């Protein structure tokens, strides 16, 4: 009988970790359906980005107050995981506060630190809920967030508050039971903890049995909540907690204004001018499409970007097109890319392989009008806290529109003609190039 809680705990833990792993494997599969792109050069630079951009959250500090608040949630999340380790061990071997017997001298201090973080997380989450729902901040109000994305953001804030409350409640009930000398609890006399002791007056009226029940219930609810949270993560924008790290590491290190070369086109052009120089291997291996019409035409990094996006909208707030009422929103580009990757993932889950479902990233999720509005100004890339490039996706879709569909606004078609015939985007002859000298 006495092992039942432990078995139950082990079972829950296994189910939680199993479901989480399956989901991560599916996401990895969806990402790797993208085209291969080698992003392993300059490891030192990459580690630097990981530490500065992901761990150090450098871009967040463009707005220091929000950055510090976000840092609390983030540190709270990271550090409270140490406490989780104790909870897991306790759950598995049936101990009570196992670390207390190992490190009694600093145990209370540690829990006090955790409690401080838990308390800060609650305060910050309440503030963020307020900011998101009451204060008018344009990037949280725009239409691309209506429905699930908005609920997702609120849900996770509420969940964090509940989890942290359970943690504090558990500590409060525990220390109260200790001070009353109740059997199972008085063997680990940790003493009161700073923050949870404020809850004592609320619990003091209960007798020992009920209090022990509250303590156990909080403990179970907390761990079940954490396992649920773990499994919620990869379905939500909060996946950035994990993916921000690889995304910073694999960030492209080329200047952001540089467009990726297309060796196949380069070779075709070379072939036209100097056939003897063209690399036959690349020319012959020409892909069936130029540019991208669907997510698997994009690089795997673009799809990783999409899964890492936290939907914060900093990109859209900086985007000159979005700012002036154009249809384009770089955040929506990322959300659409993720939606499409998920859509394809569901087809594969159902059928075992990808069958054409008659839908595409281009047209079904992202319209021509959106793509046309981009000035390639890179403001979105500059402001993204998790190293995402929406413009890289935009440009690959634009390439498809022009090179595969010959779909361009009239003025562009005329400009292409000028460049081709007069070697300038305007209708002037080459002789007129030096006319300014004598004007």
């Amino acid at each position, binding site marked *: 009988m006495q092992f039942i809680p432990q078995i139950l705990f082990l079972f829950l833990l296994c189910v939680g970790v199993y479901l989480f792993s399956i989901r991560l494997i599916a996401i990895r599969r969806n990402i790797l359906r993208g085209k291969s792109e080698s992003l392993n050069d300059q490891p030192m630079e990459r580690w630097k980005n990981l530490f500065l951009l992901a761990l150090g959250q450098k871009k967040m500090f463009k707005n220091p107050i929000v950055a510090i608040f976000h840092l609390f949630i983030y540190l709270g999340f990271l550090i409270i995981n140490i406490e989780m380790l104790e909870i897991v061990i306790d759950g598995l071997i049936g101990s009570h506060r196992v670390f207390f017997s190992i490190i009694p001298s600093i145990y209370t201090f540690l829990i006090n630190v955790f409690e401080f973080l838990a308390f800060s997380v609650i305060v910050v989450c309440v503030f963020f809920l307020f900011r998101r729902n009451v204060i008018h901040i344009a990037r949280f109000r725009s239409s691309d967030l209506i429905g699930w994305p908005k609920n997702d953001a609120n849900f996770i804030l509420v969940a964090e508050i509940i989890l942290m409350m359970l943690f504090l409640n558990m500590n409060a009930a525990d220390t109260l039971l200790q001070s009353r000398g109740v059997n199972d609890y008085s063997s680990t006399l940790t003493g009161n903890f700073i923050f949870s002791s404020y809850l004592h007056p609320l619990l003091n009226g209960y007798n020992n049995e009920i209090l022990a029940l509250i303590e156990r219930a909080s403990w179970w609810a907390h761990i079940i909540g954490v396992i649920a949270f773990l499994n919620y993560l990869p379905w939500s924008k909060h996946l950035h907690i994990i993916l921000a790290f690889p995304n910073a590491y694999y960030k492209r290190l080329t200047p952001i*204004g540089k467009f990726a070369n297309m060796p196949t086109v380069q070779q075709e052009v070379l072939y036209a001018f100097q056939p003897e120089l063209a690399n036959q291997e690349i020319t012959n291996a020409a892909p069936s499409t130029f540019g991208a019409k669907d997510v698997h035409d994009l690089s795997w990094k673009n799809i990783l970007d999409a899964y890492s996006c936290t939907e914060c909208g900093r990109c859209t707030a900086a985007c000159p*097109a979005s700012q002036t009422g154009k249809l384009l929103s770089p955040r929506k580009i990322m959300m659409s890319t993720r939606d499409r990757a998920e859509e394809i993932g569901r087809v594969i889950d159902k059928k075992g392989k990808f069958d054409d479902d008659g839908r595409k990233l281009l047209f079904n999720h992202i319209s021509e009008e959106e793509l046309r509005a981009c*000035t*390639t100004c890179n403001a979105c890339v*500059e402001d993204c806290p998790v190293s995402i490039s929406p413009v890289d996706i935009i440009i690959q879709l*634009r390439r498809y529109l022009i090179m595969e569909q010959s779909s361009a606004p009239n003025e562009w078609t005329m400009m292409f003609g000028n*460049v081709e015939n007069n070697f300038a*985007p*305007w209708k002037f002859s080459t002789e007129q190039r*030096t006319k300014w000298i004598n004007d």
Partner: protein
Amino acid sequence: MNVPILSDEIAKGNSPDVLFWVGCAGSFDQRAQSITKAFVSILNKVGINYAILGSEEMCTGDPVRRAGNEFMFQMMAYQNINLLNQYHVKKIVTACPHCFNTLKNEYPDLGGSYDVVHHSSFLQDLIDQGKIIIKEGGSFKGKKITYHDSCYLGRSNGIYEAPRKVIEALDAELVEMKRCKSNGLCCGAGGSQMFKEEEAGNTRINWARTEEAVASSAEVIAAACPFCNTMLTDGIKVKEKENEIKVLDIAELIAQSI
């Protein structure tokens, strides 16, 4: 105006130190032509050993590449690189951030590696070396000048300080717009937008940017890109501020002050 053409110079046995890449805007656009002339007048005055390609220059391919037409970009790049390599060009200076970005960042992949500098860095160097000497009590002394960052110069290539140093050398008061440097708002011309009607929205990007420039209370809006210049000049006209606010390139500011 005396402007050496590279092919002539090579025929005469001269080898210029630096090629001035004029760019299509600088060659054909009326407003941008005066930027080109201003820059050339500085080069001549300082005595730089330079040349231009003249009628042999072609579009770098920036607008077609950004529109998505990679074929045409590769065609332009191929022909330009062939020409530049044939003339053994080592150093290029250009007054256009789009040409600058393409020549500097995109041509190396295609076999064209040169030392490419933007005219803002070039001018700053000349000032630092004492080769450009600003007139005492120049026409911009004490004037409020704001600087609009070009996306392809700033965010794309990290050049924020050189143009500002040039403005400060004029003894002018540099005032910043609310959004500047890495946060600077685009003028609306990049990504080949210059060559088509803006998509439907509630305002135009260049109008929005012009409003920010006007709000800085500057008397001069300095730009370092012919396209930004056109966009902001247009914005100032729409806001009916032509009489109070001038849009000038940093080369024009210098040319009028030496």
